[in-house]
């Protein structure tokens, strides 16, 4: 793979448009906490929908889906499309209440809402700390991902340099326009992702003699790609159910998604996003999965499955489409990373240092420096405690759901119920990460989620009811 003059032009134009959007957003933004952190709670339906989608659909969606389908078959579409579509009901179950309470009380962070209900600063800081701990390493990993994407088109450029350039651009537009810049750039980047994926699919299908022929070739190459559990027996019914549960409960616990519930202009914005989410998913998730399995019929062989989409695009589409897909992959990565950067800096600033925009900008720069240092010092993303955090990001965040749900709906929930639920859930996640314990075919995160729910229920009963609670337990 290599980059030509056109690729450079595309890339420069893409970065220039991002900065232009940021400058325009800057003009509309004042250094008021509600305006900088939440775009003054004024995101209308189209912006809210695109920013929720582009933030949630990362480089994993764009490149990783094709890679996973390449190794484990088309079952990848089912677990991702169903789980993410069902997750959109959370825009009603959580989003509506979070939006209402946030507007009424002036909340900006998830921790404020959880701690506010129980009047507990300790719980607020615990919630924020957990959200940040599991998001910061993920942000650093995205920086490395950006470096690798750029190296695919410019092999002579060091991964580190590409990662630094992308992180600096992200940092700049977050600093410029806060949530407004992030939301607006998400719309632009979301459209690029969709157009790039459709173009890649259309050209590849055409080059392989049509969709039916492309599928037939792949089926003849390996029939098990088209049935579950797939070639490596990955998609068992337990894993299928695990992923459905994981996406439904985990996605809204991403700080970058949770804080977006505060930004809605009205409940109508949330409704529209909820309806359109599965419509987009129905076809957008299908395209990389089919390209991934078609690679078998096309004779593509690679040791790194995450490259399979780009290899297919390079082989079967004109250079302009290849350039567009590279930009699409970068857009997918950057639209997630910018939201993570803003969300974590918002959480750390507002919950630990006070609602000061200036301080948040310092935290944003520090987080960017951290991500860049992570790349410069050649940290192995698969090793050490950071590696464990990256691998357990979804598990680590999903155990925040019981406390969040109970805070909004269960009036017997207590502060200690939430604290035990979170700490017990996280302890389970780490025990499973380091010890080979039985999980009965399910993902360990589902066990951690169950333990988190159980602890919340019983500890709340005990704390809330005193001795009466103990009697309830044992009778």
């Amino acid at each position: 793979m290599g980059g030509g003059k056109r690729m450079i032009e595309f890339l420069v134009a893409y970065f220039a448009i991002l900065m232009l959007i940021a400058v325009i957003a800057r003009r509309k933004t004042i250094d008021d906490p509600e305006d900088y952190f939440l775009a003054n709670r004024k995101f209308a339906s189209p912006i809210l929908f695109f920013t929720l989608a582009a933030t949630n659909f990362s480089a994993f969606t764009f490149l990783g889906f094709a890679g996973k389908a390449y190794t484990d078959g088309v079952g990848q579409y089912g677990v991702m499309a169903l789980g993410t579509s069902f997750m959109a009901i959370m825009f009603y179950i959580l989003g509506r209440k979070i939006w209402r309470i946030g507007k009424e009380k002036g909340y900006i962070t998830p921790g404020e809402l959880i701690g506010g209900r129980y009047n507990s600063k300790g719980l607020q800081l615990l919630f924020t700390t957990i959200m940040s701990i599991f998001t910061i390493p993920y942000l650093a990993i995205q920086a490395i991902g950006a470096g690798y994407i750029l190296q695919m088109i410019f092999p002579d450029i060091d991964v580190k340099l590409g990662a630094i350039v992308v992180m600096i651009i992200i940092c700049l537009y977050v600093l410029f326009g806060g949530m407004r810049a992030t939301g607006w750039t998400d719309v632009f980047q979301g459209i690029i992702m969709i157009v790039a994926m459709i173009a890649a699919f259309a050209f590849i299908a055409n080059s392989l003699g049509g969709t039916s022929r492309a599928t037939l070739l792949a089926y003849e190459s390996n029939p098990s790609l088209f049935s579950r559990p797939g070639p490596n027996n990955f998609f068992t019914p337990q894993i299928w159910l695990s992923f459905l549960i994981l996406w439904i409960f985990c996605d809204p616990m991403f700080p970058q998604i949770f804080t977006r519930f505060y930004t809605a202009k009205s409940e109508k914005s949330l409704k529209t996003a909820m309806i359109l989410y599965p419509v987009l998913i129905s076809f957008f998730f299908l395209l990389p999965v089919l390209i991934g399995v078609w690679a078998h019929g096309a004779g593509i062989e690679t040791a790194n499955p995450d490259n399979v989409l780009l290899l297919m695009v390079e082989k079967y589409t004109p250079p302009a489409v290849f350039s567009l897909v590279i930009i699409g992959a970068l857009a997918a990565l950057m639209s997630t990373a910018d939201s993570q950067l803003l969300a974590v800096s918002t959480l750390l600033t507002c919950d630990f240092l006070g609602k000061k925009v200036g301080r948040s900008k310092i935290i944003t720069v520090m987080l960017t420096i951290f991500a860049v240092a992570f790349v410069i010092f050649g940290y192995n993303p698969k090793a050490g405690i950071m590696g464990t955090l990256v691998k357990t990001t979804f598990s680590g965040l999903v155990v925040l759901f019981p406390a969040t749900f109970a805070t909004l709906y269960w009036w017997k929930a207590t502060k200690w119920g939430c604290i035990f639920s979170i700490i017990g859930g996280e302890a389970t996640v780490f025990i499973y990460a380091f010890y080979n314990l039985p999980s009965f075919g399910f993902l360990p995160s589902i066990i951690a989620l169950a333990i988190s729910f159980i602890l919340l229920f019983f500890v709340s009963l005990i704390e809330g009811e005193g001795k009466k609670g103990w009697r309830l337990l044992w009778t």
Partner: protein
Amino acid sequence: MRWGIPFLILVILSIDLWNWKKAKPFFLAMPYWMWYVVSIVLLTAAFYAVFAKYGWREEND
């Protein structure tokens, strides 16, 4: 609660154990069970649309 039942039915239908280990027959470049999944996803969108109109009471209602 009455809105929870159709949603739960969609979730249960998405665990299509009866389609496991089946690839054929194919229809328009995909195994028919994948079209089944697409249908569930689009039915979910339709459910959300109906729920948003009739079941989701806005703040000022």
